[in-house]
């Protein structure tokens, strides 16, 4: 058990940029973030402000140019299972079935376990995301929502200490998005894992996190102030929309972001790095007659 005052994940004065000389883009500068164990944080921001870069730093997929990324007070030197990450494009291996994709992670993380135990472990998480009926399917046969759930199951099966999610629901339609949000919330409430969510949807941020931190627009993006979420979210989603506290918080965050953006507008616009997303189109475009249900 960690000491109360020790942070699980910390970023101190982190700077990172890409390119050399005249082409250099400083994406993030002076990032300071402290994540307590058990917390759930959402980072909101505009497209291209560096959100993916930020989460990659935390996952250990990128190294900062200056500053420190600390996990349990130890500098992060690379990726690891304790910092599980759910990618924006699911990153499922398309030649493996759902079960095999999850097993890939389980086999790596728990090599000492007997096969049966590993299988049971994987299946537990697949059940958790309600995909038991799809265990032997390949990603090509799944809808976007299902794929994201597999990705989530895979990451969760690793039992990470921190769950990093990079705009996990960004490529989905509104209804799927909404239902998956509920699922994630349910899972999180059950496991109490420290979570860090990146999203461009303020509503989603407020719904899913304890703290909402805006990422100011880039280049040289910095983190804005934390907005604490004290709303009772156990009420259902539709009634939340009319909850005044919810509305007030949402407006605060949005106004903050809009202000920041208009500031930037007067500065030189730098280049935006767009995420590398491939949309999931329904199967009927390529000739199959039934579209898959989410």
């Amino acid at each position, binding site marked *: 058990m960690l000491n109360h005052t020790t942070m699980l994940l910390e970023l101190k004065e982190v700077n990172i940029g890409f390119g050399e000389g005249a082409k250099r883009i400083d994406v993030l500068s002076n990032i300071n973030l402290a994540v307590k164990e058990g917390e759930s944080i959402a980072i909101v921001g505009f497209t291209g402000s560096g959100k993916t870069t930020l989460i990659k730093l935390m996952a250990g997929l990128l190294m900062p140019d200056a500053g420190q990324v600390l996990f349990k007070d130890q500098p992060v030197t690379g990726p690891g299972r304790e910092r599980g990450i759910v990618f924006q494009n699911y990153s499922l291996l398309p*030649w*493996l079935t759902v*079960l*095999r994709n999850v*097993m890939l992670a389980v086999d790596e993380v728990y090599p000492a376990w007997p096969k049966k135990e590993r299988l049971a472990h994987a299946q537990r998480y697949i059940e958790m995301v309600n995909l038991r009926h799809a265990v*032997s399917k390949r990603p090509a046969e799944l809808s976007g929502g299902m794929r994201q759930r597999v990705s989530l199951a895979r990451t969760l099966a690793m039992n990470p200490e921190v769950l990093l999610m990079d705009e996990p629901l960004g490529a989905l339609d509104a209804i799927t998005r909404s239902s998956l949000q509920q699922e994630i919330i349910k899972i999180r409430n059950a496991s109490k894992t420290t979570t860090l969510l990146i999203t461009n949807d303020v509503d989603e941020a407020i719904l899913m996190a304890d703290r909402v931190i805006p990422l100011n627009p880039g280049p040289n993006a910095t983190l804005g102030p934390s907005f604490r979420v004290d709303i009772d979210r156990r009420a259902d989603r539709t009634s939340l929309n009319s909850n005044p506290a919810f509305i007030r918080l949402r407006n605060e965050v949005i106004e903050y972001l809009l202000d920041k953006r208009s500031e930037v507008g007067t500065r030189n616009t730098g280049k935006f790095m767009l995420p590398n997303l491939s949309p999931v189109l329904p199967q009927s475009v390529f000739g199959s007659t039934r579209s898959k249900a989410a």
Partner: protein
Amino acid sequence: MKSTTTHYWLMATASAIVTILVFAACGGRTSSPVTEASAAGTQTASGDVIEKPELVLGFIKLTDMAPLAIAKEKGFFEEEGLYVRLEAQANWKVLLDRVISGELDGAHMLAGQPIGATIGFGTKAEVVTPLSMDLNGNGITVSNEVWQAMKPHIPTENGKPVHPISAAALQPVLEKFRNEGRPFRMGMVFPVSTHNYELRYWLAAAGISPGYYTESDITGTTDADVLLSVTPPPQMPATLEAGTINGYCVGEPWNQQAVFKGIGVPVITDYEIWKNNPEKVFGVSKAWADRHPNTLIAITKALIRACKWLDENEMANRAEAVAILARPEYAGADPEVIANSMTGTFEYEKGDKRSLPDFNVFFRFHATYPYYSDCIWYLTQMRRWGQITTSHSNEWYFETARKVYLPEVWLEAARRLEQEGHLTKEEIPETDGFKPATGDFIDGIIYDGRDPVGYLNKFSVGLKDNL
């Protein structure tokens, strides 16, 4: 549940391994001869063990590979305890290389090949021969254009050109080409082929220079009035038609093919250049001969019998031979084309068929005996044109001939055949290996194998030796 990826890898590897094993087990050949190691030697009638009863012999698709085909089809090989596969080769170079490397046990060879190889012109290797396969059999053909230009300069009798046609009739044509700035090219089949030397002899007899070989020039076109180059026999008619060459010297059926197709006219046969000249031999590498002495004798016996069969009863068997040769696995040409030369006629200009019973001689005149003087003649011609770059004494010529030609093997084979009743005493020559001096050449110069250096110095065109 097995991972599908692993499954695929397993499947792929398994199929690859199975495939390799299956094909490897079947080997490269579907009807492969067994190697010496696995086949125990069979015994000959005389009790000697044949070291290697299963043989692969190579040949080029010419009518004078007949002794090989006849020896196989008439069972002469089998009677000697030999099981022979005959394999056509792409060209003379490949054939020689494969005999040297051992892929072929022996082959139908140009008389010059064992000699050239032994002295090191071209690939150097020790190649020997115990048997001459035939005499004569070549012709020189020119294109229709050249023939038309030659005709006015050829004396006629009863409306037909007088034979033999000397290359003097070619002189004005060369003049014409020179004035038009066109080179005159002729083809022959191999740098050490009989065709090369016969063509050169014919040209030189009329004072035309066929080109010299030097240390630096291995194409033999130095100071040439006529440029000679190598073309594989089957491609000669096509090359003539295309105009790339203006004439060629080659064996049959390629001269008669030209007449048949109307693309050229044979002007002279090598019988008329040098009566009864040695043409093809049966060659093996010396290493092979040393390892398989009994097998070599057996092969020689079978081939002598085949040659005798071909010339037997005033060529009564020739028609059957034509039928055999026309098969696609042997010479393969149409029977009508092969028939001419094999049955004693030769068609020059279309319609001008003349009797030439000795166009192919396989056995008469002791054709199969490997005379040293034949070998020495080739050596002199090699020296005459510069393929042999330095002067040599007569002794050198004798020594070299003894290295390449193996009359001892022939005599042993003939003796046994005599015992078995296949040969009569008269059919075995009594000789020291040197034929008597002869002037049966188109230019009448007398050749005596015992004085090769002197012979060289008789020519007006050609290198001379001053020893």
